[in-house]
């Protein structure tokens, strides 16, 4: 459940639904691209990191596998 909650939070941040309420969002630039793109891609990077952390844990039955 904790992982699902983290994914939901990251989804809310990454999907740029709230930028339509922020005036001049498309004209504010960070690193040469619109700020909403930077936030969205950073959110996506956080999803990747969180998924990698989940994948660090062995899967059921993996301990018994021959390496």
């Amino acid at each position, binding site marked *: 459940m904790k992982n699902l909650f983290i994914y939901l939070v990251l989804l809310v941040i990454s*999907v740029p639904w709230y930028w339509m309420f922020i005036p001049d*969002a*498309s004209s504010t630039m960070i690193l*040469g691209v619109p700020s909403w793109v930077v936030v969205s891609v950073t959110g*996506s990077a956080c999803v*990747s990191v969180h*998924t*990698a952390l989940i*994948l660090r844990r062995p899967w059921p039955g*993996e301990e018994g596998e021959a390496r």
Partner: protein
Amino acid sequence: MIGQMAPLNTMEIGFVGFYLGVLLLIGLAGWRSRKANTLQDFYLGGNSTGLWVLLLTLYATQYSGNTLFGFTGKTYRVGFSWSVSIQFMTAIVVVYLTFAPRLFALSRQHCFITPADYLQHRFKTPALSLTASLVMILAIGNFLLAQMMAMGKAVEGLFEADPWWAYFSGVVFLAAIIVIYETLGGFRAVAWTDAIQGSILMLGFGALIMLIFQRFGAIDKATALLAKSAPSTLQAPDAAGVREWISYLLIVGIGGALYPQAVQRIYCARNARTLRLSLMIMVFLPLITTSVSLVAGIMGRAYLPGLSLEQTDSLLTIMCREVQQQSLLGRWVVVVLFAAILAAIMSTADSILLSISSMLTKDVYAPWIRQDASEADLMKVGKICAWLFITAGAAGAILLRGTTLVTLLDRKLDLLIQLSPAFILGLWWNRLQGNAVLAGLLVGITISLTLAFMGYGKLYGIHAGIYGLTGNLGVAVVWSFLATPRERDVNQTGVD
């Protein structure tokens, strides 16, 4: 024609020819490395694929001609909103988490070869297994068509010949190479060539971003230009755009994880640890690779404005021509990039072809046409199917020259996502019944295709496949709740 690169010279064509020759040699090596004349060995390489080959074959299979041509063209048309592509490619790996661990364990216990082997084991409903296989064949057959069209487009600008003739030759020649190495080496040839193609693809993405920045300068100049010439390309999505964004996350995230060739890569891993580590690395690749297509599309829109809809899918070749004219180094970077483009397309096409051949043989021919066929007979049938299917694909690609690539992508995923109740819910919920899943699948397909053929590929920004999946899930869940659980449905979800 604006989409043409400057024609390659003899040495450059020789380099590309050498690369294609290596693919054929790998097919031969795969044939010599076969351990047994069985379907398991031919279609899954004996379930012994190691970490790096598995990672590169997953990567090369997921990143196709669409990633390079379709995504770049789409970014050109819609602007930064297509950064959704980075998210939906990441979502594919997240969706794997919901079913890959259990499916892998089951595949080891019961020696699955095709995705329908799992369905037959779980639901014991032959009509469902057959329908699911046919849906997958139809969906990825569509995708194979897209790859073959991309082959033609890639070669189209390479020679000074008539564009139609170059397109025709590209489709036929490259299709022949794929089917030859695949017939020789089966999954081993496909996975090994994918490993080489995946490496070249990564090199190509690196070369592409380097040459784009060298030719056009930093991205801030491009966005400054776009702020004046096409401000809509910089804008965050509006309400309709957000709906479409979420729809893309669902349809590509779920549908992309359910490609049959991707499911078979879950089966073929040497062990669970190998698969887990491959996915762990894979989840970072969209940030590196898909973003390159995004940057290419933005640069193209800023510096090469005014392209027609059809020309936008050839944006990469147009940019290549720009770079080729700069210097000798530029010419060679483009040669590497051209090899990467071919790699992306061919690696996806070969995986699809092998998957289709396995499903036609194992899920259609063996249970429904000739139950007493030996493994040797089935292998022969599989190879014949591959040749017939690629011939049909080549003919289709030649006839459909000019259709845009992302349109084809949408229809395929509308179908594949309908399989998610069977593959994902089926692994977690004992009570889900085969007949209910079959009814849901048929309802989902009917809704999706009806909407699509009525011209509503997206309705209020939501893909037709999502409406279909809603109906599909509703039928499958309600039916399963109302029906009396059967003895055989108990404890079918997980590993014993």
